[in-house]
């Protein structure tokens, strides 16, 4: 081990181990979240979710995954082949890159880039690309309508997202995720200083990941299944996986920026981090099963007419207060 370390350099070893760990975590997280979604949905709807497949239904996601792997790989005849094949693969890139800079605890972070949050935001815009490829390449009207809705929604909500994160960056004078997490020691969590920004960030990020109440791109009762209508088997599983991992990533960013990151008494940092992140994930799932869908023009109205002005005012007030 020492010799390998000296040969290639410790940094590289750390990065490789970190990447493997991240991949393992992504898969595990997706499994847990699919199980949790069905259980949470079940209990909110006065029934129990999966129960027969293993104790408490814990093996259910594994059964789902194996089943999806074993499905026939079907390519519809008139699809645009390069776009159709690449879309599910490209949607994973922003997800994996975002995991590199998330600080799971004081020592568990693959790489602490000093413009960490900028990396995440830049790459998350790429996911719009893959949705457009999926929608266009599927040669299906529903997929196209779903994809166009999704693009408009993503573009509209990126701006409030950014504007909500800026006050925190201004307060800590740094883009690095580690620094921001460290700056909230004790009870100085930024959610107490920036409640408006937290709310705006939360709403904008739920819209970014296409979850109800903003899930028009996958509106089941209108558009069959939105932009992934024509995908089956493993390719569909990849879209599914990417969506659940995105939910975790936005919760992780919210925890790092507003809820103190991995700081907390008694328990090790990673436990606090996972606890807080999964709490936010639970809230997002709770929202899904409670609210109806917002109509498309109302969705864009919320972003352009309500969230962005509010975020701007918040930014100005923060800037003013910091100067004084």
């Amino acid at each position, binding site marked *: 081990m020492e010799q390998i370390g000296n040969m290639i350099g410790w940094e590289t070893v750390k990065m490789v181990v970190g990447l493997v760990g991240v991949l393992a975590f992504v898969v595990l997280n997706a499994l847990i979240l699919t199980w949790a979604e*069905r259980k949470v949905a*079940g209990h909110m*709807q*006065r*029934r*129990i*979710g*999966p*129960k*027969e*497949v293993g104790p408490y*239904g814990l*093996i*259910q996601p*594994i*059964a*789902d*995954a*194996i*089943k999806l792997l*074993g*499905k*026939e*790989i*079907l390519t519809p005849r008139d699809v645009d082949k390069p776009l159709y094949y690449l879309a599910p693969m490209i949607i994973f890139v922003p997800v994996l890159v975002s995991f590199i800079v998330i600080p799971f605890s004081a020592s568990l972070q693959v790489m602490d880039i000093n413009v960490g949050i900028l990396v995440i935001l830049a790459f998350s815009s790429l996911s719009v690309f893959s949705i457009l490829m999926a929608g266009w390449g599927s040669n299906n009207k529903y997929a196209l309508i779903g994809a166009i809705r999704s693009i408009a929604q993503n573009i509209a909500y990126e701006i409030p997202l950014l504007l909500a994160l800026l006050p925190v960056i201004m307060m800590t004078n740094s883009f690095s995720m580690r620094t921001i997490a460290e700056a909230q020691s004790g009870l100085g969590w930024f959610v107490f200083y920036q409640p408006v920004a937290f709310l705006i960030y939360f709403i904008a990020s739920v819209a970014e990941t296409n979850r109800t109440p903003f899930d028009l791109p996958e509106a*089941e009762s209108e558009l*069959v*299944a939105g932009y*992934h*209508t*024509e*995908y*089956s*088997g493993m390719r*569909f599983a990849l879209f599914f996986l990417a969506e659940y991992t995105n939910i975790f990533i936005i919760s992780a960013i919210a925890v790092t920026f507003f809820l103190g990151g991995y700081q907390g008494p008694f328990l090790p940092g990673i436990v606090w981090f996972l606890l807080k992140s999964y709490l936010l994930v639970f809230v997002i799932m709770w929202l899904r099963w409670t609210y109806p869908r917002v109509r498309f023009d109302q969705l864009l109205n919320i972003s352009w007419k309500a969230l962005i002005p509010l975020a701007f005012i918040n930014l100005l007030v923060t800037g003013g207060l910091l100067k004084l």
Partner: protein
Amino acid sequence: MEKVLDLARANSIWPMTFGLACCAIEMMSSAMSRFDLDRFGAGVFRASPRQADLMIVTGTVTKKMAPVLTTLYEQMPSPKWVIAMGNCAISGGPFVFEGQYNVIEGVELLVPVDVYVPGCPPRPEALLEGFLKLEEKITGTRRFPGPENRW
């Protein structure tokens, strides 16, 4: 290896929403809180045929609907199964009379059927039993003791 695949497929069958007539309400009832179908892994009713494994034909198939049904069946990727629920899907039901011109007498004339669930409409428990029979057909073993084994 085959056994693991079969077990996985049987435990996570995703039905497609294909409610045609009255039996559709009983199918929805069987997916609801009292007769939860999600317990067996069949919770997620996918709307797109490309992501579904099971087509539950609930209701009468008429000549105008027949091409739609076969198109949807062909769009499903294999392995796929079909449950014919209700008398109309099995053999035309109460709508077969002399001089009838629009009802297809049984969905088996269009697609291969795996399990028949009789009734007009069948109770949700009957649909659950049909579901368990389908799992038995896939894996070879039955999950709960069946009604004939009880005494």
